[in-house]
């Protein structure tokens, strides 16, 4: 009998011990490689600032590209990282003074209610523009300034021209570059040129042009030289083809859906001009002074209808049909080709400067292109589809926190490769994408 008692006891203790039989976890060794991550500074435009959902606001800044990179650098010796943070709970402010957007319900001119980006408040938070956040004992690492054009990076008194810089400037006479250099940075990133291209693209190429590659280089090269003057290493970002972003791809060129009576009506108007319509999908009508004597034509495959187009006018008031779309809402094929060529030329400049100075390059252009094609990240399908794609915020141009985390990983990969570092990537799937009601 005693034997069985002992045996039972032994068996029970054995079973108790088995729960503790676990593989042991050892954190992989991280290393900074050849960089000094003590003080990281990033200069850039809207994609660097943390602007998203068409506003600068707190959660966007907390998940800004440089903040996420700095968070990982801190695992290999990076120091404190400060940003010109907006107050918590603020509704944020857009270029045009509006609040941030959220996904809500909107009733269109036809009385149909659907999920749509809506502003969270009637007005933006103007105090953001008016209150200066500069603190000499907590110098910023994020010099991302929405709307920063190449020509203004070293421009003194730029705070008079840009409200987003005004709120973070060290003085009313300094420049973005001077402020950044004053931090005694040890590692840097430049993500410049995107706002240049966006200004052109978001206006439908209406009344701006683009720098030539030579002009671009003349502006870009001195910035690099000054950043590396004290021996800092860094990473340069290429400029993406912004026309692959949802702002430019969401409304199809042939999104004009007609039933038989409407097609007949339109044919009676337009057949005389040489245009015909059919039941189903048709290209929108647009204004094009070079098209013919009537200066109108149908949109062509590949052309972009911008998200800035007043959708109610399209749906209910014949915009894009009897009232052809104005140039500011369309990127035509020649405009797209011009822009894409320039972007490639800029990127050639950026790559050759990086090679010349032994700096890392992160291919943001490839990242935006991959998003456009779609890919799977740890079981999550990512794409450039508006709202559902998972990477872009509700403005269709800036990334959401998850998009920024994915892009931050690309920066980290490029840094690791160039500088033989082992900086861990972020788990981008844990960051917020669009929140649904």
């Amino acid at each position, binding site marked *: *009998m005693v034997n*069985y*008692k002992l045996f*039972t006891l032994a*068996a*029970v203790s*054995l*079973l*108790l011990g*088995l*729960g503790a*039989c*676990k*593989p*042991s*976890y050892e*954190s*992989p060794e*991280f290393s900074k490689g050849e960089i000094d991550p003590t003080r990281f500074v990033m200069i850039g435009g809207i994609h660097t600032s943390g602007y998203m959902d068409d506003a600068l606001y707190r959660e966007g800044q907390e998940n800004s590209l440089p903040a996420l990179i700095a968070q990982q650098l801190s695992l290999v010796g990076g120091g404190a990282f400060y940003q010109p943070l907006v107050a918590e709970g603020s509704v944020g402010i857009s270029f045009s003074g509006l609040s941030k957007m959220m*996904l809500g*319900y909107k009733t269109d001119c036809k009385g149909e209610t659907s*999920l749509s980006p809506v502003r969270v408040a009637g007005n933006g938070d103007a105090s953001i523009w008016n209150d200066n956040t500069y603190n000499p004992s907590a110098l910023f690492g994020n010099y991302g300034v929405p709307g920063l054009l190449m020509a203004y990076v070293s421009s003194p008194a730029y705070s008079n021209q840009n409200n987003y810089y005004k709120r973070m400037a060290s003085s009313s006479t300094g420049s973005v570059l001077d402020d950044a250099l004053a931090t005694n940075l040890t590692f840097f990133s430049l993500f410049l040129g995107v706002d240049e291209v966006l200004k052109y693209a978001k206006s439908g190429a209406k009344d701006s042009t683009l720098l030539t590659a030579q002009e671009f280089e003349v502006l870009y090269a001195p910035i690099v030289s000054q950043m590396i003057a004290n021996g800092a290493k860094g990473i340069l970002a290429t400029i993406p083809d912004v026309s692959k972003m949802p702002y430019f791809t969401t409304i199809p060129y042939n999104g004009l859906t007609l039933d038989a009576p409407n097609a007949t009506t339109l044919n009676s108007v337009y057949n005389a001009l040489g245009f015909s319509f059919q039941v189903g999908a048709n290209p929108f009508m647009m204004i094009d002074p070079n098209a013919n004597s009537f200066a109108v034509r149908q949109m062509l495959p590949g052309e972009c209808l911008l998200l800035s187009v007043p959708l109610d006018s399209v749906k209910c008031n014949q915009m894009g049909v009897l009232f052809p779309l104005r140039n500011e809402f369309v990127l035509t094929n020649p405009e797209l080709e011009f822009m894409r060529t320039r972007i490639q030329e800029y990127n050639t400049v950026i790559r050759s400067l990086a090679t010349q100075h032994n700096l890392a390059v992160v291919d943001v252009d490839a990242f935006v292109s991959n998003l456009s094609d779609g*890919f*799977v*990240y*740890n*079981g*999550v*399908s990512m794409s450039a589809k508006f709202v*559902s794609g*998972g990477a872009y915020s509700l403005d269709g141009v800036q990334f959401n926190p998850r998009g920024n985390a994915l892009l931050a*990983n690309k920066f980290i990969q490029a840094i690791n490769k160039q500088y033989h570092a082992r900086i*861990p*990537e*972020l*788990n981008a*799937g*844990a960051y*917020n*994408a*669009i*929140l*649904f*009601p």
Partner: protein
Amino acid sequence: MAKKTLLLILFIPLFQVANAQGFQVNFQGQKQQGMGCAGSANYTDGSSLFYNPGAVAFSNENSVNVASTPVFANVLYVDSATGAGYRTNSPVGTPFSAYGLFQLKKDAALKFGLAVYTPFGSTVQYEDNWIGRFALTRLKLMAIFIQPTFSYRFTEKLGMGAGFVFSTGEVNLQKDIPVQDSLGNFAHAELSGKAMGFGYNIGISYKATDALTLGLTYRSQVNMAVNTGQATFTVPSSLTASFPNGTFSSSLPLPAVATFAVAYTFSKKWKAVLDVNYVGWKAYDTLAFDYANNTASLIDTKSARMYKNIMAFRGGVEHKIMDNLDVRLGGGYGFSPVQNGYVTPETPDKNRAYFTAGLSYRIGAHFSFDASVYYTQIKRTDKNLETNLNGTFTTKAIAPGFSFIYTW
């Protein structure tokens, strides 16, 4: 004494600390488990109904046999990009078996048997918010095989047996959906359903000499079909129309296993066994879910699994220490059916070596107690082609088992 064994049994459900990994479970007989899960050639006890119905023809007893083998398995996943580690915290897997073996009279050539066992099944549960949550958070797979069997001793050397397998089971698969509500909570999908399948288990046992017995068995593939499973989605209210709750169908092939087995008796005290399995995992090429209500967001899925047929080698020895006590030692090597690019969180499998030990203790003429223990550790690094999950799974598993046999 009965009280104490009861105590032991009662303890087991309390160990909600580990889980079984992989979905084939080779724990159907304690004597075989003690010898590296081999022993299909000759008759051992009621568990031969599973291992080789042909060998049952050489039994000469009635017996009832109940057994369980709690599986304590822990998985650690280390993500290659972030370096972060995540663990499973799933409940203990409890494969069990029960065998009844009967003959109408002493020395009858015909034997009847009924076997109930769980050759496949486990629960894998990953910790909350783990990096692969959009691939899998929890998978429960349970298949119970019920196998009525006839065995016939054709000659003093040749026995054959055949069993019909009716299988009933359930599956419950859960994962998070990368869609968030206004508070940032991720949506969740749960697919659950009852599954059914049919198959057979046949075997031959041949006593080549007094010392040498050969065995050949074939357990057929069983397709576990879920015809009306329930798909339940917890999503933000604005998306309920995109993810409608409803039914789904799916099926999972439980592969065929062909075994060639040898048993050799060296002396009254020493015996050795060897089994070679060929497992038809190739049948598991796709895991498909067909939803009754499709939407743009909820489309039918087909995930490539691309398993390959594999072999496994198992062997062990038995030594009689005393008249009423045997001890066993064994081990084996199994190739993994999971090819590179197809490793998933539900079966982070790899070629594996394992070790086992066991004992039998007989009390009087009718009663015996068997115990065994199994240990393995495997490590698999892979980048899954479908999810791009890229990291290393390390699994440790210990499975102590026991059985009670009453013969008359």
